[in-house]
């Protein structure tokens, strides 16, 4: 192959002109995730939105979840629960969640303490469930690869592969995992994977009379959940852990742990 000085300069000039005509962004190095989203990945990314103003603590979500997902109804284990927060004027926080709110809050007493309504400065309910983190600590610690994140962002447990060691139960900063006494494996909220993969909503979302719980596709900008997360003031639980939760809360209070 030969190339005269004249040809080399000519081609060099043409190449330079083409490069100069391109926008600067075309020279940017993309991460694999960025490249994937740029070419349009058809997959969905499930996300959840909880409106704590709307929640009334009725607990129908907890009941529906336990029955839908075959979680032993009378044992003190649950995939989702609702916490009651009562903050009194002397700045004390009272929290309780009797039976995970499976039967609703049947008592005006909080944790056995009677609180005069006049002393309450704020009080509200906070539904909790698996945050389906983008960086799930529970998956990272699994020694056998039984906990994993699906392509659409849901963290699941492989019941045939789990050895029941319980590392993931300890690793979850939100305490959403528990040991399933029937299957003898770690168990957790699956975002009702059997329902959302059929185009249904989760059992808790369907059961909630007040629309306090919503599930949606975070990759679809027209999804009402995505819109709300993008435009409204939302927060996540324990952001400082770096787990990147995908359950967003409207009206989250600093007292909520």
């Amino acid at each position, binding site marked *: 192959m030969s190339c005269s000085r004249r040809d080399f300069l000519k081609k060099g000039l043409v190449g330079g002109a083409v490069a100069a005509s391109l926008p600067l962004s075309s020279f940017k190095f993309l991460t694999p995730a960025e490249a994937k989203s740029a070419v349009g990945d058809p997959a969905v990314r499930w996300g959840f939105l909880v409106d704590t*103003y709307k929640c009334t*603590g*009725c607990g*129908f979500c907890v009941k529906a979840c336990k029955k839908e997902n075959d979680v032993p109804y009378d044992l003190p284990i649950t995939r989702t629960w609702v916490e009651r927060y009562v903050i009194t004027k002397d700045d004390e926080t009272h929290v309780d969640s009797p039976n995970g709110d499976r039967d609703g809050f049947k008592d005006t007493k909080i944790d056995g303490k009677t609180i005069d309504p006049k002393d309450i400065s704020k009080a509200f309910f906070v539904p909790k469930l698996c945050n389906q983190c983008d960086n799930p600590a529970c998956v990272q610690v699994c020694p056998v690869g039984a906990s994993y994140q699906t392509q659409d962002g849901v963290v699941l447990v492989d019941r045939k592969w789990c050895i029941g060691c319980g590392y993931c139960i300890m690793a979850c900063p939100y305490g959403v995992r528990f040991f399933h006494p029937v299957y003898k494996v770690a168990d957790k909220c699956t975002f009702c994977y059997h329902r959302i993969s059929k185009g249904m909503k989760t059992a808790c979302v369907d059961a909630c*009379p007040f629309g306090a719980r919503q599930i949606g596709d975070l990759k679809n900008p027209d999804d009402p959940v995505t819109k709300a997360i993008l435009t409204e003031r939302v927060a996540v639980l324990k952001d400082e852990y770096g787990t990147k939760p995908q359950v967003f809360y409207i009206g989250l209070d600093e007292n909520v742990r």
Partner: protein
Amino acid sequence: MRNHVLRPLFAALALVALILTARQLMVPSDFGVHGDSFTYNFYRADSVNDWKKFPVSYKGREYCAECHEDNTESITKSKHAIIQCENCHGPAMQHPDNPEALTINRSRDLCLRCHLDLPYPGSQRGELPAIDPNDHNPEQECVECHNPHNPNLEDME
């Protein structure tokens, strides 16, 4: 080199071969990285299908309306329209094949899930009509006076 020196080496190699063969046989072929991250997407691919196959128990109001149109229609005209049938009637999974599986909850406790007076500011709970269960006809079931499908007090019989 003398044979007795090499013998442990052969034993070790045989053990490694055995473990690798056992691993090959025991680990399913679909076990691997399915996604971007080795840390988070390392799993048995068929497990996702196992979860997809999990049976659906709660079928939703449309399913109930297929037969009980009169009831679903009456409740959608009332303030209780926001409550799903299965919240009180139980999951419809085995219905109608096994009518006994449907456990209708008519108890006072069920109504109190929402209507126990908890005057909480910052929560919609404080806005719901509410009672003190110790004052409000304590011995009676709510459904004796209130129709859960139409709880409007003016229509009360």
